[in-house]
């Protein structure tokens, strides 16, 4: 059972991490398109997979939602911004690809070429 006691433990751990890290110091910002087009294409489980994996690995990553990214046929779309604001756009993302993005890109800094928009528009 999920108890409020457990929530308090998670809260205290989060506070500890917040003081350890410089405030707002994140390695990556991940943005998921969550307009109707994205949601209809399956963006909800993609977002939630990203949130879950980031939580599980305690990664210094911010996951955010946005509206239509403007390429409805390629939704679900996930954009990864690094510290220098360099953007990688992943398209037609599903939960498996989302897990790969966390493991390979967010944890090991590797751009997964075959999932990127550049690969699809070639």
């Amino acid at each position, binding site marked *: *059972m*999920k108890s*409020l006691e*457990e*929530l*308090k433990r*998670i*809260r205290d*751990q*989060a*506070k500890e991490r*917040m003081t350890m890290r410089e405030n707002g110091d994140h390695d990556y910002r991940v943005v998921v398109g*969550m307009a*109707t*087009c994205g*949601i*209809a294409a399956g963006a*909800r*489980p993609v*977002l*939630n997979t990203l*949130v*879950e994996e*980031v*939580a*599980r690995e*305690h990664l210094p990553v911010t*996951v955010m*939602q946005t509206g239509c990214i403007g390429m*409805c046929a390629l939704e679900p779309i996930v954009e990864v911004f690094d510290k220098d604001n360099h953007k990688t756009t992943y398209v037609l993302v599903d939960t498996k690809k989302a897990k790969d993005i966390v493991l390979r890109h967010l944890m090991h800094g590797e751009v997964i070429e075959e999932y990127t928009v550049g690969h699809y528009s070639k």
Partner: protein
Amino acid sequence: MQEIAMTILDIAQNSIRACAKLIQIVIRDSHKDNIIHIECLDDGCGMDDKTLQKVTDPFYTTRTTRQIGLGIPMFKESVEATGGWFSIESQKGVGTKIIGEYVKNHLDTPPMGNIAETLITLIQYDDHIDYVFQYICDDFEWVLNTKEIKDILDGVPINQPDIILWLKDYIKEGMQK
């Protein structure tokens, strides 16, 4: 939308776009009364009469060039196809209330889907928006009020990944009690 949970996400996203600070979602799922009653109430910017007219007029929907139809007419159509009913009330500067009631055992009534995923998706979006979620079935009633959760969190944002993860299981368990 294939699931009621997706429809709720779509309808509540309208409330977010309308700058709501408090969004109340009610699901009453009753075998006894053979209904699935969905309610979404917000304190967002509301609609003037002209918009309200357009948003409920099916003729207006068929004329749009969008790939995916407007969320509200789709919701209305979907509940009415099951013999249920739909209502929308809105007042500029006050807020909006949308109700859709499905006939539970009708063949065209979509499955409930993953309500927990829908709620955490909404909560994850912006930690400044509060939600009261009420789930009522024949045997019990369960309420989630994000303000109460935030009191416990004591300043830690509710949309932190590990808190979202806890919430997901908390909601799942709450709806099964």
